[in-house]
C-alpha cells in the first residue's frame, strides 16, 4: 500500500507534459523504463529518474533504441509494467520489436514525442509525421492502439489509459505526442490512487500442467498470461506459433495466429475508440484534428461560430484504431471535413476514406510554425463555406 502512495502524487501540480507522462506511468504502476537518450523525449526520463527509486522501479539506459524496446518486452514478461520513451528516429529503430511485441502479445507502452521533419528533422520543433508509422511501421500484419493527448493533463490520463489498454488487449500501445504538448506547462490534477482506473493483465488461473501460452479466451480473443519464473516453463517465439507457443510453419497456423492478432483489436475497435465532439450536431463544416493541432482548432471553431458559420470540431483521442464509424456518420451531416495536420497529409487520407464521398475532405498543412495560431484554419473554413 505504501508503495502505491509514493507512486501516485495525488493533488494539483504545475507540470509539463513530459512530467505528467512520467507521473502517469508511475501511477499506472509502471516500474520499468528502458530508453536511449533522444531529444525531445528526455524530459520524461528525467522525471522518472528522480522518482523511480521511491517506487523501487528500474531505469536503464540501453545502448540503442532497439535494445531499449527489447529490454522493455523482457521486463514485461516478468510481470512488471514497462515502458520506453523515444522520438521519431528512435521510434523507427523500434519497428522490428513492435512486431515482436505484437507477436508475443506483450503489454508495454511506447511514448513517441514527435519531432518535425523527416529523418533527424528539427529535433526541437513539434512534429506530426509519425502517425502512419505508428500504424504501419513494422513488417507484417498487425493492429496497434495509439493515443494522442493534447494537454499535460491528458498526458497523465492517457499514459494511465495506455497501460490499461495494453494490459487488457495484451498488445503494445503507443502514446503519440509532440514537443509542443510535452513542453507545455499546465495544471495537472492527479486523483486519489483509488480513483485511478488501472487494468492489470489477465493472469492464468487454471492448473499448471494445462497451461498453454496462447490458448485464448473465446470471449475476447486474448490469452491469459503468466510471469517468467513461476514454474510454467513455457516457450514463446516470434515465429508463427500454435497455442503451445511452438513454431508451426504452415498457412493454417498463420491464419490461426495472425488473423486472431488482427481481429482482437479490430473487433473491439468500437470499445477502444475515443474522441471529443464539439458543436457537431448542426455543423456544415467539421474540423477533424488530433494532438497539439486540436488546441488551435477549438479557437478557430469558436471564432467562426461567432461570425455565424456553423462549424464543429471532432478531436480524435485514439488515432488507432481509427474512429471510422464516427467519421462516416459525421460525413452524412456535414458537407465539408477539414483536416489540419502538422505533416504532409496522413490522417486526412483516413478521413477521406471514411467520408465515403459524402462530404468533401480538405487537407490543411498546419505547420509546426503555426501551432498556437488558428488564422489559417479560420481562413480555410471561410473559404470552403463560401463555395
Amino acid at each position: 500500500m505504501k508503495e502505491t502512495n509514493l507512486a501516485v502524487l495525488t493533488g494539483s501540480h504545475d507540470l509539463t507534459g513530459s512530467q505528467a507522462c512520467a507521473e502517469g506511468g508511475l501511477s499506472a504502476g509502471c516500474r520499468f523504463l528502458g530508453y536511449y537518450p533522444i531529444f525531445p523525449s528526455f524530459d520524461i526520463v528525467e522525471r522518472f529518474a528522480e522518482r523511480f527509486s521511491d517506487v523501487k522501479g528500474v531505469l536503464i539506459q540501453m545502448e540503442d533504441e532497439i535494445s531499449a524496446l527489447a529490454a522493455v518486452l523482457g521486463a514485461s514478461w516478468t510481470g512488471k509494467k514497462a515502458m520506453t520513451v523515444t522520438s521519431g528516429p528512435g521510434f523507427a529503430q523500434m519497428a522490428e520489436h513492435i512486431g515482436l511485441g505484437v507477436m508475443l502479445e506483450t503489454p508495454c507502452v511506447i511514448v513517441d514525442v514527435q519531432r518535425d521533419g523527416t529523418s533527424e528533422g528539427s529535433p526541437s520543433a513539434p512534429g506530426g509525421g509519425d502517425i502512419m508509422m505508428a500504424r504501419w511501421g513494422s513488417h507484417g500484419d498487425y493492429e496497434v492502439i495509439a493515443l494522442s493527448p493534447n494537454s499535460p493533463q491528458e498526458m497523465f490520463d492517457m499514459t494511465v489509459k495506455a497501460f490499461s489498454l495494453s494490459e487488457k488487449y495484451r498488445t503494445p500501445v503507443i502514446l503519440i505526442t509532440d514537443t509542443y504538448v510535452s513542453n507545455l506547462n499546465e495544471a495537472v490534477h492527479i486523483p486519489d490512487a483509488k480513483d485511478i482506473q488501472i487494468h492489470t493483465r489477465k493472469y492464468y488461473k487454471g492448473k499448471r500442467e494445462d497451461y498453454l501460452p496462447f490458448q485464448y479466451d473465446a470471449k475476447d480473443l486474448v490469452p491469459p498470461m503468466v510471469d517468467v519464473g513461476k514454474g510454467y516453463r513455457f516457450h514463446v517465439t516470434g515465429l508463427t506459433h500454435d497455442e503451445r507457443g511452438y513454431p508451426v510453419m504452415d498457412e493454417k497456423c498463420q491464419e490461426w495466429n495472425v488473423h486472431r492478432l488482427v481481429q482482437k483489436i479490430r473487433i473491439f475497435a468500437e470499445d477502444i475508440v475515443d474522441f471529443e465532439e464539439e458543436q457537431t450536431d448542426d455543423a456544415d463544416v467539421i474540423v477533424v484534428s488530433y494532438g497539439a493541432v486540436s488546441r488551435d482548432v477549438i479557437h478557430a471553431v469558436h471564432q467562426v461560430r461567432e461570425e455565424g458559420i456553423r462549424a464543429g470540431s471532432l478531436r480524435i483521442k485514439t488515432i488507432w484504431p481509427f474512429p471510422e464509424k464516427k467519421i462516416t456518420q459525421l460525413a452524412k451531416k456535414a458537407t465539408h471535413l477539414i483536416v489540419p495536420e502538422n505533416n504532409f497529409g496522413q490522417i486526412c487520407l483516413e478521413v477521406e476514406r471514411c467520408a465515403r464521398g459524402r462530404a468533401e475532405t480538405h487537407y490543411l498543412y498546419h505547420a509546426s510554425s503555426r501551432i498556437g495560431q488558428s488564422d489559417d484554419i479560420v481562413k480555410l473554413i471561410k473559404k470552403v463555406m463560401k463555395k
Partner: protein
Amino acid sequence: MEAIITQQEAKRHPMDNLLRMDRMPHIWCPGCGIGNAVSAFADALDKLEYNLDKLCVVSGIGCTGRVAGYIKVDSFHTTHGRAIPFATGIKLGNPDIKVVVISGDGDLVSIGGNHFVHAARRNIDLTVICVNNFIYAMTGGQVAPTTPTPAYTTTSPFGNFENPSNVPQLAEAAGAVYVARWTALHMRRLTYSIVDALKKPGFSVVEVISPCAMYYSRINKLGDGLDMMKFYYDHSIIKHGEPTDHLEIDYQKEIIVGKFVDRERPTYSESMGKWFED
C-alpha cells in the same frame, strides 16, 4: 531420425525433465554440434540442481536460436541479435531469475555485437553460450563474422578475405568476468565450464566451436560432422589462462580451448544496489 527414439523410450531418458520431448525430433541436421551444446547445458543444469522454475533461456535467430524451443524452462525465441537486451529486461525486471542466453556467433557477435559489448560492460548477470559454427547456417551458408580466411561460403564464393572476430578477446575486452572456449567434442569440460559460468555472478561467456556439416563443411569440402570431430580431436589444444589475443582461429589450424578469464567485478545489480544504499 524420428523412428530411432520412440515416445516411450524418450520418457525414460534422464533429460526428460530438461527438454521439451513433445517437440522432438529437433530441426538440427545430422552432424551438427548444437545438440552437443544443448546436451552439455542440460547436463550442467542437472549437476547444479537448479530450481528450473527460476531459470530462463533466451535465444535470438538462427540454428542455435532454436535452442530455447527445446529446453523445458521458461524460454523466449526473440528477434535476430536481440536476445541479450531481451534477457537484460528479464533480469532487471526480476533479479531472482537466472537468465541464460544461448545463440549463435552471427546472432551474438555480428547483429547483436553492440548488445554483447554493452551487456558485458555493465556486467549484467547473464550467462551467454555462443555456439560458433563459422557460418550463417539457417539462411543457407553465408559468411559470418567468425568465418576464417579463406573459407568459402555462399556469399564469399571466391573465399573469405575479412578478418574474423575473436569472441573470447571481444568478451574480455568488453568486461566479461568469465570466458571459456570448448569445441563440441569436449563434452565433459564444456559441461563443467557451463556449470562454472552459471555459478559465476556477472556476464559469463562460453564459446562452443561446433561443426556445421550441412554448409561450412560441405562448401569447404571438410567432410561430415564426424570428420570435424576428428579434426577437433587432432587440432584442439587446451591452454587454460591463455591470453585472449592468442585465440584467433585460422582456417583448419589449431584451436586453443580452455578457460581464459575468471575475474571479479561487481555486477550491474550489485553496483546499483550499493549506489542507492549510500
